[in-house]
């Protein structure tokens, strides 16, 4: 381990004291922050040369961001346990037999969730709940089932204090799926995040309409293009955290992101950006990710010692990594300016073409980069359109059109973003607040989903413009909780603070209503 300066130690000690004394952090949030502070003192990763001047610099120059994963990763960033195996076999470590009825199944899941780590210490995946619970619900009447599911979901919302926690349903309609949607529409909670895997012809319209109605009340579920995901990742994929497509029984070691706008600032023009600046930064980020993965696999001991791996709920060889990016819009606009060309991202055919050529270049780079521990995805990282963090200023999520610059007509908006979704199997998505008239015509939203998925869009989210629960970027927050936090009160979910930051810096409350 490399030494660090006493000045850095003392700065960290100051930060630790600030965390301890914070009036707004809850106890759990303090403990998590303290762990991060301790981790920040370590220097064990074999860092590529040049990383420091791309990552540890002021935010307007930062080209690579590791999303606070820490200096010595003790677990993969995103872990996707095979809950079906747990339900079938129980767990020796947790001393749980396979559940025999709905009461036991829900209780067992709630126990299991508390032992699934992640970058936030909360599970980012809660299982394909409809399929997991369907066998147990057969002999339970609707009222009892709903009461139990309500209790389960309230427990999740109040103990998994982070809305990157994601459950899945679909594509087939099930009784459990319907009851879950009914309960979610009533509860209007931020946690869990929820995705309906949707495929036209497989998911019936009735079930999909119920999902739309639920989304208009509670900002979930989102709609995932099941046909695309299963063709790329196989049937055993899940949607976790924000909207990340990942292999079941595995997950993602790490997620780092390119800040494309700041890379564009380094370039003299499009040619320099594509031949020099972008390849240089991509290469360093990929090697940084390699170093993080090597530490996790070869040194952290996680895969040898954690019960999830030992009992086969996850397998090391089903993990991959996510090569993220943000700020395509700013990148394209900066390059157009440098070239003296008119037009802006989202409104100009040339801008869209330039954007797509940049994403294709990043995609092709990843197809060539090889990591020995990403066997499940052919030895390659998966591209990820990252949704941004609360500190981001003038950085649009992934490939999104900046808020405030959306095309007047939704059709024009969709026909820009459909150039990009196909490159991101580990996640991308766009969000649309809807006018209140849509309550009378939920088929409107379903028609848009159907058309979008035929046009190779991957993932769409909707909420009604006046809803209390809203989708910030990839996660859910209640506006009423943001107001509490603003007035200096403690709030349960750590994501509320992120939402408040995103509302201030990312203008998420000003999205164009459709």
């Amino acid at each position: 381990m490399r030494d660090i300066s006493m000045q850095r130690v003392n700065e960290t000690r100051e930060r630790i004291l600030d965390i301890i004394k914070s009036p707004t952090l809850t106890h759990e949030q303090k403990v998590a922050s303290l762990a991060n502070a301790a981790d920040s003192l370590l220097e064990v990763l074999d860092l590529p040369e040049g990383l420091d001047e791309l990552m540890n610099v002021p935010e307007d120059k930062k080209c690579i961001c590791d999303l606070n994963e820490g200096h010595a990763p003790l677990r993969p960033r995103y872990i996707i346990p095979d809950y079906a195996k747990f339900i079938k076999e129980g767990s020796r470590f947790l001393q749980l037999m396979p559940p025999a009825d709905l009461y036991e199944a829900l209780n067992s899941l709630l126990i299991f969730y508390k032992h699934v780590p992640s970058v936030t210490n909360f599970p980012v995946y809660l299982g394909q709940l409809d399929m997991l619970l369907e066998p147990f619900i057969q002999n339970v009447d609707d009222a009892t089932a709903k009461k139990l599911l309500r209790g389960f979901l309230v427990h999740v919302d109040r103990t998994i204090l982070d809305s990157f926690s994601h459950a899945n349903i679909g594509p087939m309609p099930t009784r459990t799926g319907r009851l879950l949607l009914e309960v979610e529409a009533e509860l209007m909670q931020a946690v869990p995040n929820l995705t309906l895997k949707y495929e036209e012809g497989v998911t019936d319209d009735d079930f999909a309409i119920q999902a739309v109605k639920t989304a208009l009340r509670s900002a979930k579920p989102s709609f995932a293009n099941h046909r695309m995901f299963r063709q790329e990742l196989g049937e055993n994929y899940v949607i976790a955290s924000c909207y990340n497509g990942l292999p079941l029984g595995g997950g993602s070691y790490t997620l780092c992101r390119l800040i494309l706008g700041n890379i564009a600032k380094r370039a003299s023009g499009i040619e320099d950006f594509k031949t020099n600046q972008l390849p240089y930064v991509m290469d360093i980020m990929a090697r940084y990710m390699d170093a993080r993965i090597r530490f996790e696999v070869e040194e952290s001991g996680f895969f040898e010692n954690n019960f999830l791996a030992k009992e086969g709920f996850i397998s090391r060889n089903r993990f991959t990594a996510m090569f993220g990016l943000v700020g395509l819009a700013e990148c394209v606009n900066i390059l157009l300016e440098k070239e003296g060309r008119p037009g802006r991202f989202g409104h100009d055919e040339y801008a869209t073409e330039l954007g797509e050529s940049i994403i294709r270049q990043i995609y092709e780079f990843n197809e060539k980069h090889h990591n020995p521990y990403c066997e499940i995805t052919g030895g390659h990282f998966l591209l990820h359109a990252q949704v941004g963090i609360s500190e981001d200023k003038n950085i649009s999520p992934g490939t999104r059109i900046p808020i405030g610059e959306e095309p007047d007509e939704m059709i024009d908006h969709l026909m820009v973003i459909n150039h990009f979704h196909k490159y991101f199997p580990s996640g991308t998505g766009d969000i649309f607040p809807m006018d209140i008239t849509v309550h009378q015509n939920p088929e409107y939203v379903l028609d848009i989903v159907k058309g979008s998925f035929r046009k190779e869009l991957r993932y769409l989210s909707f909420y009604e413009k006046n809803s209390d629960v809203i989708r910030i970027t990839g996660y859910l927050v209640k506006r009423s909780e943001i107001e509490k936090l603003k007035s200096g009160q403690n709030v349960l979910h750590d994501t509320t603070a992120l939402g408040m930051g995103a509302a201030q810096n990312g203008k998420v409350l000003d999205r164009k209503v459709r």
Partner: protein
Amino acid sequence: MVVTVNKIIPFSTVDGPGNRTAIFLQGCNMNCLYCHNPETRSKCVHCGTCVSSCPTGALSFEGQKVVYNSTKCIHCDRCINVCPHDSSPKTLDMTPEQVWQKVENQIPFIRGITVSGGECTLYPEFLTELFTLAQAHGLSTLIDSNGTLDFEQYPDLLAVTDGVMLDIKAGNSEEHKRVTGWDNSLVLKNARFLASKAKLYEVRTVVSPDLFDAEQTIIQTGDMLSGFLSLRPIRYKLISYRPMGVRQQYKDTLKIPAREQMEYYARLLAAKGFKDIIII
């Protein structure tokens, strides 16, 4: 053949089931007191009143004609508000093929098209041609009408029309004349005829207290149509009068109904077997 198009809304939530492209044609033969888009009533006479009112220079004269530049327009609607002729300078003359090209962009995101107005049935040949194109591409076709075209005389149009959304603005003929300037016998005939052919998708009545006897209108319409519900469900949309867009000279005299009153009318219809009743 060319018609004047007021506007095309690519994705509409409120002009029939699902996502539809809505096409608004210019010109109307009725003069409803509560008309909330009076700028669709008449054709532009190129008087130029709007040209000087435009804050962004989107309107200008070319020879004797007012010309509209959409890229300069900020959609402030000042031109519409100052127009002394219930018209708009932003209309376009288009053939069915030209309109179809604008519709085609929205495939596969839409399930159909709806043509409204103005009064779109003033142009039955246009509708027949546009709907033939739409149906050939798998889109459903709806007409939004005040019921002044005798549909029975237009079998070709009906053959390519999936449904009609029909206004019944008053049940009593004298009251209908007061609200719209027209007798309602053809409107009622159309309602019965379209319902009997399973082409009546929706009936709507705008309610404004003391303007006409809404209760009698709703009971009469309900009785007239309930026998046809087994052929095809008919949606009844009860619309509360709102002053948005209404001409100043009528705005002050028209009243907004109470929610409870609208819910009472909905119950009357439910008792007659209507299943799909919407209050807006």
